[in-house]
């Protein structure tokens, strides 16, 4: 007989209940996802610091996760707040303006995903990362980013249009 699959939510419930051993499986599963998000958002240099800060925030706020809700959107929301604080603290977004990049002939553009994503506004970039890198559904992305399903669709649509404009010159 196959054993019942233990989910992230099960570990989180144990963590809320005061079981320190629940932290290890949570850390193993969630940290790579956080790294992906922060790396794709252009914070590769402070990756470890951001992941660590997110874990401290998760720990401090663990009572705000309701066992009836999915865990990952809750985690992503916390990561968003950590990233926003990071921006405020450092004030060095380092983003290249889209208009500057569009003035470069398409043949000279690097099609590196990370560079391309950095051309997008933060909110659109976040939606694309969650949907295409993390494989989240539109509903999960909406919950994680604190917006509506319609808003997520709109941001994704605009992001695709901008990427098309950069790659092919057609808006």
């Amino acid at each position, binding site marked *: 007989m196959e054993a019942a699959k233990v989910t992230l939510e099960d570990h989180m419930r144990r*963590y*809320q*209940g*005061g*079981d*320190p051993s629940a*932290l*290890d499986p949570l*850390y*193993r599963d969630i*940290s790579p996802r956080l790294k992906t998000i922060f790396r794709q958002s252009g914070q590769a240099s402070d990756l470890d610091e951001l992941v*660590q800060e997110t*874990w*401290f*925030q998760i*720990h*401090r*706020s*663990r*009572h*705000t*996760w*309701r*066992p*009836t*809700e999915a865990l990952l*959107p*809750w985690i992503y*929301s*916390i990561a968003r*707040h950590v990233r*926003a*604080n990071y921006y405020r603290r450092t004030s060095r977004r380092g983003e290249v303006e889209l208009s500057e990049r569009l003035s470069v002939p398409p043949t000279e553009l690097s099609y590196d995903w990370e560079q391309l994503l950095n051309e997008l506004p933060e909110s659109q970039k976040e939606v694309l990362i969650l949907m295409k890198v993390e494989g989240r559904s539109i509903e999960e992305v909406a*919950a*994680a980013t*604190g*917006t*509506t399903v319609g808003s997520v669709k709109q941001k994704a649509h605009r992001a695709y249009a901008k990427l098309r404009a950069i790659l092919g010159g057609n808006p």
Partner: protein
Amino acid sequence: MSAPFLDQLKADTRPVSPLRPAWQYALGASLISLLVVALGIRIMGTKGWYSLDTIAWALLLPGLALTLFGSSWAAAQWMGPTGRATLHMALAGYAVGLGGLFYAGESGSFSPWLAFKCFLIATPFVTVTALGSFFLLRRSFGPRSNSTALAAGLLSGTVGFLVIQILCPIKELGHLLAGHGILPFFWGFLAYSTVKLSYSLKSRL
């Protein structure tokens, strides 16, 4: 795969009880507000209530109910990192309430002293509502405490509005709009500052 800070976290894994559903906090915040208003009626009577006609109250009450519900709901949602809310509904309710005041107003001479008196009378009730809101919402998600305090401020401002409107029988238009219509913003700011300060003190303890 592990990290040194995990040991630090593991050393502090005391059990925590998760937040209750948002609607329970919204209901709690609304009940605290209504209790404070009932206390105001009990202490000061309802002279202002009787001075207004049915149409004025028919405009005021839905507006105030919307503001009260909208701000309670927003505060409850902002307790967690994933909850979505805006204050549009609360502000729309406030605009409807202002319409009711405008309808009820009569010509006369505006007295700043009477407006200040209204401010002084309702301020203790606003402060009680703000502290009650903080007590109810004290386990909010830290980075969102500013938004929660904002919603609690709007809720408390609405209570100030209700208390003073029920008590004060003056129907002079300038007094109604400046004294009863604008003062809630001062009360809201006062309550917001009280709740913010409480969060700040709590995080330092």
